[in-house]
């Protein structure tokens, strides 16, 4: 071949390589998601759902406040005091309507319980006997809360975790709350950013897992020095310890984390407990900031074993900020969704969707990250996310909130942030070395993600089209059917921003079914119960959790969309006690209250 011809061919080939990103972008259709908001009827007809934000109209007027910590941190305060907006759902008064609890983190500010009146409106339950959280410099400030009936009296109690003294509120028959933390025997101080209820030993009493973020010896209002930052952006192990409180049944708890093998000082931000191996015992998944996620297999309630690497999830450290479970392929097993950071041209961690590898189970269980393949990988600086069938088409969708610090729109902190985070341990771990933020944004004003599962292995991002248009700094998100109509609404807690209630309108021809479970031998909240639904040659599994996502808890009621199917073949319930119950052909478009037989 003549050299001139060869050279021309090489140049064309090189230009083709340079053009490849444009071609891939064009065919991937990412731009479509950025379409401007369509009207509700278009969204309904196209995707089967439409959201309308209605917090104020429903009586939820709540704005999160951030704490003012030690002034040594003033120069980077927005990124330190960047968490604490949280939401958790429960029917605290057993009136059949799902209620909302929102946390604030400002000293002197109250957490607020919003009681669902059942007519589309909520009323604010104020006062200390309504679990106000005691947010103060002396007691610390709230980071989140989880509901669980720890004394099996039929009413959901509330654990509020803080950067400070943990609070346990006993639910006094739905008529108020009394403080039970002192009697419970919790430590004086935990800098916690996550907690969940689960019955790890299946003794019928809910136990409590609390995950530390900052070292529990640190008082963020009175720092001895500024060496309290992570020692690495990806391999930090100088965070808070983990606590596992075993419920002794008399209002007291015994701390057994070390004894049972839950040893970690990674910077935990999210956790979820779910039986991944099908042996009845809930395993524990922890999403860590500044490092790899951890998975602890529960060996018969007697020991926890960290199996992150063994199962494939313990490599590639990222910035885990949510842990949610969903049966994304309707094949009867759980995928785990973990949110991370993605910022164009700066840091593309990508979110993880850990899906059990086909053919593996039990001790040999392996996971593959299919977030990219399924299209749920890039969510900005992602925080809370939850699975739920938002359009009742029979497949689990994902709602994700994002955005870290929205300040000056025209100036960002990324350069200075990346400068320090890449540095040596001695530099990154000292807050003094971090350049001042000076009101600059860091991944702020981000568009949220609503990923609709098409059931054929792809999720489609439709947030702007279906009416989710806010750009607040979202942290915590929880799903619940607030008017018992078979539609999952969404509550979002925003950092230093207003709480949002996105009311959902779903295509009326899609059917649904829901199950409100109550344990008897098992813990009364039925946390850990699995429901397998069989319909129209499909199956889907869901599990009642005592907390999931980021500092959040969905309604305990399990909601299944059915698509156009007019009937359900059967439902199999496996209670935490191990008992099973089968309901044949349950009525659809109905909430079924099921007690453990």
């Amino acid at each position: 071949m003549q050299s001139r011809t060869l050279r021309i061919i090489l140049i064309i080939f090189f230009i083709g390589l340079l053009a490849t990103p444009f071609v891939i972008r064009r065919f991937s259709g990412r731009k479509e998601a950025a379409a401007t908001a369509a009207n509700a009827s278009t969204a309904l007809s196209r995707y089967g759902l439409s959201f309308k934000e209605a917090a104020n109209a429903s009586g939820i007027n709540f704005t999160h406040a951030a704490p003012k910590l030690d002034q040594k941190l003033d120069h980077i305060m927005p990124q330190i005091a960047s968490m604490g907006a949280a939401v958790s759902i429960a029917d605290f008064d057993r009136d059949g309507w799902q209620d909302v609890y929102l946390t604030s983190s400002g000293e002197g500010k109250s957490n607020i319980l919003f009681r669902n009146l059942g007519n589309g409106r909520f009323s604010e339950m104020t006062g200390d006997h309504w679990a106000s959280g005691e947010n103060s410099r002396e007691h610390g400030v709230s980071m989140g809360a989880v509901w669980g009936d720890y004394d099996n009296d039929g009413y959901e109690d509330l654990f509020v975790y803080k950067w400070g003294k943990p609070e346990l509120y006993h639910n006094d028959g739905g008529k108020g709350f009394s403080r039970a933390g002192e009697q419970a025997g919790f430590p004086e101080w935990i800098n916690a950013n996550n907690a969940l209820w689960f019955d790890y030993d299946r003794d019928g009493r809910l136990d409590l897992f609390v995950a530390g973020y900052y070292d529990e010896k640190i008082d963020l209002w009175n720092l001895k020095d500024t060496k309290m930052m992570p020692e690495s952006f990806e391999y930090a192990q100088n965070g808070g310890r983990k606590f596992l409180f075993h419920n002794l049944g008399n209002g007291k708890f015994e701390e057994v984390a070390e004894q049972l093998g839950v040893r970690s000082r990674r910077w935990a931000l999210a956790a979820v407990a779910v039986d991944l191996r099908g042996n009845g015992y809930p395993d524990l998944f922890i999403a860590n900031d500044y490092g790899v996620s951890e998975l602890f297999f529960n060996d018969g309630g007697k020991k926890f074993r960290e199996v992150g690497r063994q199962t494939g999830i313990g490599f590639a450290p990222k910035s885990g900020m949510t842990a949610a479970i969903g049966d994304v392929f309707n094949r009867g097993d759980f995928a785990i969704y973990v949110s991370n950071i993605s910022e164009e041209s700066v840091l593309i961690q990508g979110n993880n969707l850990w899906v059990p590898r086909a053919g593996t189970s039990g001790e040999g269980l392996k996971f593959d990250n299919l977030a990219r393949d399924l299209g749920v990988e890039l969510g900005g600086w992602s925080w809370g996310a939850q699975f739920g069938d938002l359009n009742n088409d029979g497949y689990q969708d994902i709602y994700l909130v994002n955005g870290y610090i929205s300040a000056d729109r025209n100036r960002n902190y990324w350069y200075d942030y990346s400068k320090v985070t890449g540095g040596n341990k001695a530099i990154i771990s000292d807050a003094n070395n971090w350049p001042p933020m000076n009101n600059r944004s860091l991944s702020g004003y981000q568009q949220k993600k609503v990923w609709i599962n098409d059931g054929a292995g792809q999720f489609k991002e439709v947030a702007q089209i279906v009416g989710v248009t806010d750009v607040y700094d979202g942290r915590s998100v929880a799903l619940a059917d607030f008017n018992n109509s078979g539609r999952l609404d969404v509550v979002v807690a925003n950092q230093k921003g207003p709480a949002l209630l996105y009311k959902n309108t779903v295509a009326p021809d899609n059917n649904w079914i829901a199950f409100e479970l109550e344990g008897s031998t098992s813990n009364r909240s039925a946390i850990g119960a699995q429901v397998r639904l069989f319909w129209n040659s499909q199956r889907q599994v869901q599990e009642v959790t005592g907390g999931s996502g980021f500092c959040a808890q969905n309604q305990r009621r399990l909601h299944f969309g059915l698509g156009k199917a007019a009937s359900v073949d059967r439902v199999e319930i496996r209670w935490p006690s191990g008992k099973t119950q089968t309901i044949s052909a349950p009525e659809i478009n109905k909430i079924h209250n099921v007690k453990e037989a």
Partner: protein
Amino acid sequence: MPEIITGSEISAAPPLQPKDVKAKPASALSRFFSIENRYLPPMLITTILLVGQLSFGLLESFKQTALAIGVAMLLELALGRLVYGKFPNLASAYITGISVGILVRSPAFWPFALCSAIAITSKYVIRWKDRHLWNPSNLAICVLLLLAPDVFSTLSIQWGNNLPPMLIVWTLGALITWRVKRFHITATYVVSFLLFALLRGFITGHGFQAEVAPITGPMYQLFIFFMITDPKTTVKPRWAQCLVAFLVAAMEMVLRLAENIHAPYYALTIVGPLAVAIEIWITARKRPSAQPV
């Protein structure tokens, strides 16, 4: 007569001239660690990768790194055969692939393959006076940072931000670059960076530690040992090599003051080829005028 392809990166360090070679027979060990051993740098970078992966899990995944290496080597074979009529030595392509595998951060697979492909192809396409101007992997990374920012990035955090692994890599890297007579480039750049960090600290008010932080990270270990020392894309005289290393650091400082996150890559991409081009131009001017036109 076809050109003998020696590759591009540090593995292709020029062999010693006869006067430099010691007369007495070398032992197997000294032969192994000799300057002529073009496999020494690939082995070093492989060791770094394996230690980093096994101890910290630094890679996005082995599969992505394998893809980057595979594409680089296959394309080198194909293009070398096509352009020069013979299969080239693959040590250089291996280093390119492994550098891409470590430096590229993307959850997708295609950026790894594309980055390697652009790197290798650039060596054969962007040439002047029979020399290629850009360090291949540096150019490819800069191109993709500009063209695919939505899925492509580089990350400077590996090895756990701990001192001991960093010292090991710095020591090994220094020994290797010293053996292949490129240490002066690395040293000049590092000293320049430190001085500029001091200056930036005064200008920004962020202090020396914040400004010096980047070079304590692992990305710089690859940058200073494997990228700026690339024999094929550096100028020949030692003093000029030092000058170029200083200018790269100076350009980086300018970019850093403009808050450019990927400043070192862009600085090398701007300064490196300019220096080579000037050298080529000067060399051409010095040639005897009697040469056939």
